[in-house]
């Protein structure tokens, strides 16, 4: 079959036109192979998750064969290396939450207020200048923040308001962690507030509201769920943060939790076990997975919660 064409000369110089509309041999296969390759890359995320889950569940099963979940979650005594051994993480959880609480106390007010300023008051130029600064600050490695906590904030607090503060303490770790998550809170909240539709604001202005009243009564309530998502994400970050507490908070669980004393969080416990000089077969390794699983599930639940809140918020306003 030849193509109906008026000028034979040009047709002759072209490669022979394929008679059918079928793909040339091999093209379909090649395209499928390439597609499969990309699919494999995409599935790597699934693989990582499954691998993680499998590792943690398997290790934890080993752990819970020896230690009852009631003891794990119900006891305040964490003493895996002294006889009688005890594997209660309640004190660790309490310490983690206290430090997280301090961090959020610092980060939330400062972060949300900064976000309000950036989104509502700052000029477009200032906003464009400051947003990248926030991003760069959010990129400062946490080990650096840990150094700040240990070498600046603790001595500063000792020298000024709290002379009895320990060299290791939860307070300065929490405060510095607050400043670490501050850029994150500010940046996320700013996105949320900036996305509040103009029409909402204009509606309020048209009723004679001042700028402050518009922000306080319209913009912030409208952005509430988005800011909530930022809060949850910040909390997840604080709970999972390792280097700041490993450097500044010490490695002794405090019960009852007292932030002026050394504290041990879930993450420092993990570091402690992993860097300890244990035999490869020692039972304490399996505690690593139990605590890791606890941490993983907690942060994952928080992250997913925040993900869906943000998603719902976006659907509402975009």
């Amino acid at each position, binding site marked *: 079959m030849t193509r109906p064409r008026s000028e034979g000369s040009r047709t002759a110089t072209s490669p022979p036109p394929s008679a059918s509309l079928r793909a040339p041999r091999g093209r379909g296969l090649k395209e499928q192979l390439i597609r499969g390759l990309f699919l494999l890359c995409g599935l790597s*995320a699934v693989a990582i998750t499954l*691998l993680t889950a499998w590792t943690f569940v398997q290790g934890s099963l080993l752990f819970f064969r020896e230690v009852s979940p009631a003891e794990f979650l119900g006891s305040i005594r964490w003493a895996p290396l002294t006889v009688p051994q005890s594997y209660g993480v309640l004190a660790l959880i309490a310490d983690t939450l206290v430090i997280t609480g301090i961090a959020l106390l610092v980060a939330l007010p400062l972060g949300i207020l900064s976000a309000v300023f950036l989104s509502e*008051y700052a000029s477009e130029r200032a906003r464009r200048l400051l947003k990248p600064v926030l991003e760069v600050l959010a990129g400062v490695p946490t080990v650096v923040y840990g150094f700040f906590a240990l070498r600046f904030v603790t001595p500063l607090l000792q020298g000024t308001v709290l002379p009895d503060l320990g060299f290791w303490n939860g307070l300065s770790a929490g405060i510095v962690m607050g400043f670490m998550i501050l850029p994150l809170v500010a940046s996320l909240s700013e996105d949320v507030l900036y996305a509040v539709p103009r029409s909402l604001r204009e509606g309020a202005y048209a009723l004679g509201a001042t700028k402050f009243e518009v922000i306080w009564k319209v913009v912030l309530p409208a952005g509430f769920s988005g800011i909530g998502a930022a809060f949850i994400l910040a909390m997840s970050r604080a709970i999972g943060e390792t280097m700041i507490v490993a450097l500044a908070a010490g490695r002794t669980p405090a019960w009852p939790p007292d932030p002026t004393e050394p504290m041990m969080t879930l*993450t420092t416990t993990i570091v402690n076990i992993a860097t300890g000089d244990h035999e490869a077969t020692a039972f304490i390794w399996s505690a690593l997975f139990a605590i890791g699983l606890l941490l993983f599930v907690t942060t994952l639940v928080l992250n997913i919660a925040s993900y869906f809140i943000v998603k719902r918020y976006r659907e509402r306003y975009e």
Partner: protein
Amino acid sequence: MGAKTKTKAAVRRGLRRRRALGALFAGVALGALLLGLLVLLVLIATTALQSTQLVAMRATADAGLSLSLRTLQLGPRGGGTAGFFPYVTVARVAPGSPAEALGLRRGDALLRVGEVPVERVSDVWRAIAALPSGVERASIAWVPGRRGLLGSLRAVPVPDRPGEFRVVLSKVAPGSAAERAGLQPGDVLVEAGGLPITGTQQAWQALVVAARTQGGKVPLTIEREGERLTAVLDVERRGELPFQRSLLRAYGAFLTSLNEPRYPEHAGLASAFLGSLYVILVTALVAFPLGIGAAVYLEEYARRGVLTEILQILIANLAGVPSVIYGIIGLEILARSLGLGRSILAGGITLALLVLPIMIIAAREALRTVPPSVREAAYGVGATRWQVIRHHVLPYALPGIFTGMILALSRALGEAAPLLLLGAFLYVSYVPQSLWDSFTVIPLQIFDWATKPQEGFAEVAAASIVVLLVLLLLLNGTAIWLRNRYQKRWS
């Protein structure tokens, strides 16, 4: 009517109050932003300031000195002032160095640098840092070590008083202060500068502390043949050492020397720097293709469906999993199950797992910036999906993808927790040669130095922080430059 209608004046007053409240709020919001930024900037600035100590530290190292802090503990029993007396000794003298030429030896105790009395090692660095600019020399005063100052000492138990010793000079070193003061073998040392002598090392320490507090000529009470005599020992020696201060030289030496676990003035970042570099390279090689591939699948191939939705949720949330969790995975799966050990390879792959979700998200965002018209145009001339991706979508999105990748790598560069777990060594005093070598990275080195109690390591940690932040700034700068450059070109 119950409600009184407001007068115009009242309304105006109300409005003024409302406005004032608004202004106050704006002020508070600005204050919060500035406070946050200020605290972070102050922290970084003080670190930078602290790191400048490195210059003076390196200058002492260049002069050939390694210093360490010692203390003399005086109990209440011996009379006089009880307590700790810190002093600084020369721990090592580099062969062929100016310090050796000057006659400093291992075990000598430093008294002053310039006019600054030396109690702690940091006093030496402070004194050097305080030298007027352009002055590259400083006088130093020191007390020679025990053998050089006195000779050989022997402790003889006191009869009937267990635990107590008399310190006897058994040999007088030629040319020593002891010889010059006329001491003879057999003399018993009783008191130095008012401090009772109770041991051989303590005898010398007492002389050092006395020299520092009372001046270079120390009265020494001895017992010779049952008779108490007082000799005046000229213990202090003086000289001048060159101290070359240069920020560039200091950082150059810092970056090129190997780690030295004991003396901060010799500490080097070379192993950690190269370790970081190699680990990041492995991370990039693993995460780049996977990240781009997954992003291309999700943006170009995937149909809306359950699988795609699951993938999206997983990727979004994996990005928020604490990094320490990846450390456990790296340790259990890579290091142990796969037998990669504590190698660069294991570290790099661990970090690749960590940054993969970030990379996928960044690459997807870049792919989304490719206008649909470009795809349509290419399909319109009969391109296959792969041809469209290869010839149009990827080239168009590549600058954006690279920007995201660089930012993800900068995250990996600063990560410490997963590698700490993986068991990267804190002391690595060699340069890693292959992917199978154990390693350390800059953030871990910072962690190690920051927790060392000895003087000077905090400053070294601060200097490493400066190096790390500069590296990150360079990476971020490159990313931003790339973004701006190509944004202009395409739009």
